[in-house]
């Protein structure tokens, strides 16, 4: 007997994803960057999956589309919301899950699940994209690194032995001594000294010391950036770079701010354990670590690509639609 093939397709703002199931079992999965039009992305995903599975398109019995591009299907297909698809996709990987945090390209959602993978409640960002993958991309660019490098950079900050040393030293050195020392050193002496120091010496000295070797805050020190608008966050990153703060410290501050923004949604939908992450940002190790720190417990790891959970859920909806028929 021929297996029953169904396809789930998730067209996001930054990427297009697809999953092909044969009799409910994973047969192929596909991921690519989003094309200029949603219908072109859908076609590309269908072609990619059929090529991988060596199937003609006609062999697929049902399609289900999700994501912001789901309304532009060039063929007949079931349409489901991303929230329902991420919920079902995560639940099919682990039926014990009760919450999903989905961080996508332009939106982030907190979803509460029932015991059958249905949506009990959800909250998503409506007005501001500060807690999303696109914000991470913009901030990585402002930091002068690729978005893939942000996670390792932020983790590098955490594991730095220098942080431990700085924390320890700060504990031993009360602020009052610093204040007293400053009070003994009036600004006027600094100004006078500067007047005696001609420009040409500064230029020569600058030539001897490469930019960045005198960072004012090194790896290991904790800093914060605001989590308001992603463009204001971009400015904060630039200001920190201007102050010579180490990239690792800024990277950590970026992921902390983005996670803070995402978790602000949890005030509307309380999170219940076990919880998993979905969406492309879930692959960022720095974000996962920051979430773990802010939540106080680790998200449940899934044996499936978190970026494809929406497509997986869509494929299961397609399979359910066949059973109902």
């Amino acid at each position, binding site marked *: 007997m021929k297996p029953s093939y169904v396809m789930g397709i998730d067209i996001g703002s930054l990427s297009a994803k697809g999953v092909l199931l044969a009799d409910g079992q994973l047969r192929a999965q596909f991921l690519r960057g989003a094309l200029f039009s949603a219908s072109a992305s859908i076609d590309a995903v269908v072609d990619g999956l059929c090529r991988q599975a060596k199937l003609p398109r006609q062999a697929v019995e049902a399609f289900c589309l999700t994501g912001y591009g789901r309304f532009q299907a060039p063929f007949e297909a079931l349409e489901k919301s991303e929230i329902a698809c991420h919920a079902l996709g995560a639940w099919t990987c682990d039926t014990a899950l009760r919450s999903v945090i989905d961080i996508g390209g332009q939106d982030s959602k907190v979803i509460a699940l029932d015991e059958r993978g249905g949506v009990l409640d959800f909250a998503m960002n409506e007005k501001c994209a500060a807690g999303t993958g696109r914000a991470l991309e913009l901030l990585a660019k402002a930091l002068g690194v690729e978005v893939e490098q942000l996670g390792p950079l932020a983790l590098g900050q955490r594991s730095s032995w220098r942080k431990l040393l700085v924390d320890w030293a700060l504990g031993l050195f009360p602020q009052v001594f610093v204040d007293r020392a*400053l009070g003994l050193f009036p*600004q006027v002496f600094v100004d006078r000294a500067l007047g005696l120091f001609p420009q040409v010496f500064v230029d020569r000295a600058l030539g001897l010391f490469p930019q960045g070797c005198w960072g004012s805050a090194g790896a290991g020190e904790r800093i914060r950036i605001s989590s308001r608008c992603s463009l204001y966050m971009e400015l904060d990153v630039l200001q920190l770079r201007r102050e010579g703060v180490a990239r690792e410290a800024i990277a950590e501050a970026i992921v902390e701010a983005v996670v803070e923004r995402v978790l602000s949604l949890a005030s509307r939908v309380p999170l219940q354990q076990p919880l998993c992450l979905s969406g492309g940002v879930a692959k960022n190790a720095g974000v996962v670590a920051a979430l773990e720190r802010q939540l106080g417990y680790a998200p449940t790891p899934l044996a499936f690509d978190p970026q494809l959970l929406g497509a997986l859920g869509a494929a299961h909806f397609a399979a359910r639609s066949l059973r109902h028929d």
Partner: protein
Amino acid sequence: MIDVVCDAGARYVKLALARPGETVRVLSAHAQDAVDLSLFAQRALSALNPGRLEAVRFYRLEEDLAERPSLLARVRAVSPLRRWAPMQQLESKAVWLKCLSLLDQEALLLDAGALRCRVFERLQGGTKLRVVENERCTAGGGRFVELMTQTLGVGLEDLDLTVSAATKPALLSSPCPVFAESEVVSLLNAGSQREDVLAGVVNDVVDKLLALLGRAQLGQRPVYLVGGLGRWQCIRSRLEQQGIRLLEELLDPLFVPCVAGLMQVQQRRQWARIEV
């Protein structure tokens, strides 16, 4: 003695430099290319003033003055191996008051920058400053326009030309720059022309500026527009179409704060003549 004033914005770092009484020279660099402000200032100074031994006073415009520099900053300031000559802080409030003092008594100052848009008004005979600004969202700023031009594949330098070719400006509804990117792509997919979409972006930005001016209770008063957005004719025209009485540009709007800062430190009493 030469004075250098640095205005480090979100997209551009601007410098104004002059000896007292001389013509002010200005230059700018993209913020990503001038992360180290002092190094940028030093290089600019060396290029404009090659091989000359001259004392320099550096100033940087700051929103809030730190009460006292940190111990590290002070040690750095006197170290011969310092990375930069220390920059003195120049409070931007004083600079905006200086700008306003050079305008008509009743005029408002609209600073439309990359992220921040602010309206300044003089109160109590010019001794106090009232500020109305966009605090949470950057949708009306220049960076928003820049992101949209990037999404549309139009060079920022072609903004005026492209917008002038628009016949039916599109309507945008997304307040967030990131969401607006998707909306712009959707509009293009739906068959809108790039110039119409860009004109829609400009209209959206101008609407945000108008809302800000409304919050500042503009009334019939004239407005002096400064900041990066003030450089675009399409923005100025749209504001005028909406009934805003814009004062004539006295100098490149991008450089107004740092030139005014220089005038403040040199106590100049008239708008400076500048060379770009």
